[in-house]
């Protein structure tokens, strides 16, 4: 038993060292520590996996899955790099930069940067009743009618979810994701 315990400890240490070496993100520029928007780009992709869209949300059966960035783009090239080659339920992923909330009706996910804070009600109104997942970079986004908002908690990216907004749009979110998120309801 002593021998096997020692072996366990040794193996564990080896695993830790090995994993620490891998805690980096491979990019075109080389290996670097992931930034906040690297994480958020991955999260946007993950949202696509934990939320279900009705078929009516797509123009055609083979229409791509569009992730749109409304207004100024904080990701740079990260988002495109992250989404490259990925598919959602057989659909190709595409990124689009849009300027007006009305353009967002053909998107499946709309990311609203901090620059759009003033246009929030307009965005919400434009997409009301449509199966478009709205994601805001601002914590208050969900309180003001958005569906998901990012939040930084001790430099870790966390998410808030407004389930009511999601329900109204005809989308459904996995309970797994809901479990991880802080549930927020819209402020009147």
């Amino acid at each position, binding site marked *: 038993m002593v021998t096997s315990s020692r072996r*366990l400890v040794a*193996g564990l240490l080896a*695993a830790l060292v090995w*994993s620490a070496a891998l*805690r980096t993100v491979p990019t075109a520029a080389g290996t670097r520590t992931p930034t906040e928007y690297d994480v958020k780009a*991955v999260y946007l992709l993950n949202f696509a996996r934990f939320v279900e869209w009705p078929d009516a949300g797509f123009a055609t059966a083979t229409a791509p899955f569009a992730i749109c960035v409304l207004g100024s783009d904080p990701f740079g090239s990260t988002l495109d790099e992250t989404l490259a080659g990925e598919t959602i339920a057989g659909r190709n992923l595409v990124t689009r930069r849009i300027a007006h909330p009305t353009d967002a009706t053909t998107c499946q996910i709309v990311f609203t940067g901090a620059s759009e804070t003033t246009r929030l009600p307009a965005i919400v109104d434009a997409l009301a009743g449509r199966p478009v997942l709205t994601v805001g970079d601002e914590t208050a986004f969900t309180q003001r009618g958005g569906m998901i908002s990012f939040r930084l908690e001790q430099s870790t990216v966390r998410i808030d979810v407004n389930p009511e907004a999601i329900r109204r749009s005809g989308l459904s979110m*996995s309970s797994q994701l809901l479990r*991880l998120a802080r549930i927020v309801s819209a402020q009147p």
Partner: protein
Amino acid sequence: MRRLAALSIRWKVTLASMIASVTVLAVACAVFFAHELGRARVNLGRSLQVRADTIGLVSAASILFDDPKAAGEILEASRVDPGIVTAAIYALDGRPFATYRRRASEENAPVVALAADTMEGRFVGDRRLVTRPIDFKGKRVGFVALESDLADLSDVKSGFMLAALLVLALCIGIGWLLALQLQRLVTRPILALVESARTISRDRDYSVRVVVRGGDEIGVLARSFNEMLEQVEERDVELEAARGTLEHRVAARTRELQLEIGERCQVQATLVRQTEELTRSNADLEQFAYVASHDLQEPLRIVASYTQLLAETHDGQLGPDAEKYVRYAVDGALRMQNLISDLLAYARVARAPAPPQTVASGDLLSRALDNLQLTIEESGARVTHDELPMVRCNSSQLVQLFQNLVGNAIKFHGERSPKIHVEAVCRDGETEFSVRDNGIGFDSKYAAKIFVIFQRLHARGKYSGTGIGLAVCKKIVEHHGGRIWVESRVGQGSTFFFTIPQAAPDREAKEEVRHVGVEAS
């Protein structure tokens, strides 16, 4: 082992069925146990795998959204399963994303070498490791590893042991009761048989019969036993009958034998009496003959002497008739003298006082031939003999015997000059002498007659003699305990045989001699 052999068949049968059933049960329990244990191991592995898969499924989001706390909470749910010692969720890059320890003393996390070949569960010592990949929507997002101790297995083991022991005890109890009841099927008829056999051998009562139940081997045994008893009984009756007959026959035979013995005793007594009478009359006769011939000699000598004197002194003076008469008288007197002298010799044989001696029979023959010298010379006879053996006898009597036989042979010669040969052979404990001549011989039908006293085969005118010589021979031979006989054919000569026993003459003959001797004195 010897104690087991002495055990009653009742207990043997019970024990045998008990041993068989308990053994079978134990084997069955062992097989079930092995099977159950194997199944428990497989189940444990499977349930661990299911649990790992469940954890993976639930924790996928927490990995994807980098929420170790949430993952930790999911792992924490493993606490409901006390068998899980440690658990861990690994990110795809291999770093431990969340861990769980049942107790603080447990190792931080199970060793997981994140390779495909370790995805199967395996048993390590008293632990079991299961590693499962976490896939979400076709994409691998991480791994989950569980480590379980085998507390469940040992629970299964001890539970099964207890159950097996209980079942075994119960079955031994029930089996014992059943065997006790069922053994009677087999043992009751056997014991009945044994009881009957005991009764029979104790009371010797062969009329007892065993009750035969069923046609199995014991039934056959019982029937055979009964048949045997029947045979014994029949034989007993026959034996009894035979014994009765036998006793009856023995009694009858005994009676017959007693009668026969009585008759024989009477006959013997008569015989003894007659023998005594005969012996006495014989002795009286001999005494009479001896005394008579002895006393007759004296007056006869006077008659003979004076008639001879008369014939010599008055030769030619008497008339021719008177001379003829005187000659007749002299002849008669001489013949009577010979007769008396021969009779005396005959009578003396039984009175011989001399004890037997061992002598050379050749010497005795020579003495006989000396006595016969004149006769031999006159007749021109030639007497030859082989080598003759030593004999135990009364020598003067044996000389007399040779003398009579050789004299006889010379006397009855034919026209040829007599040739006489004496020889002897020893056989069967006696010496057989033979005296062969080439004389006139005689018809063998007279062979017995010639040994009787006063019996003559020829007219007195042709051959002189008193007719006593051979009777004397016979008496001498018989006195020595031997036999005498003759073989002869007319004109072919005669051979006289006699035997002398090589042992001493039997006691009876001696007794008789003494008896007669005493009476004579």
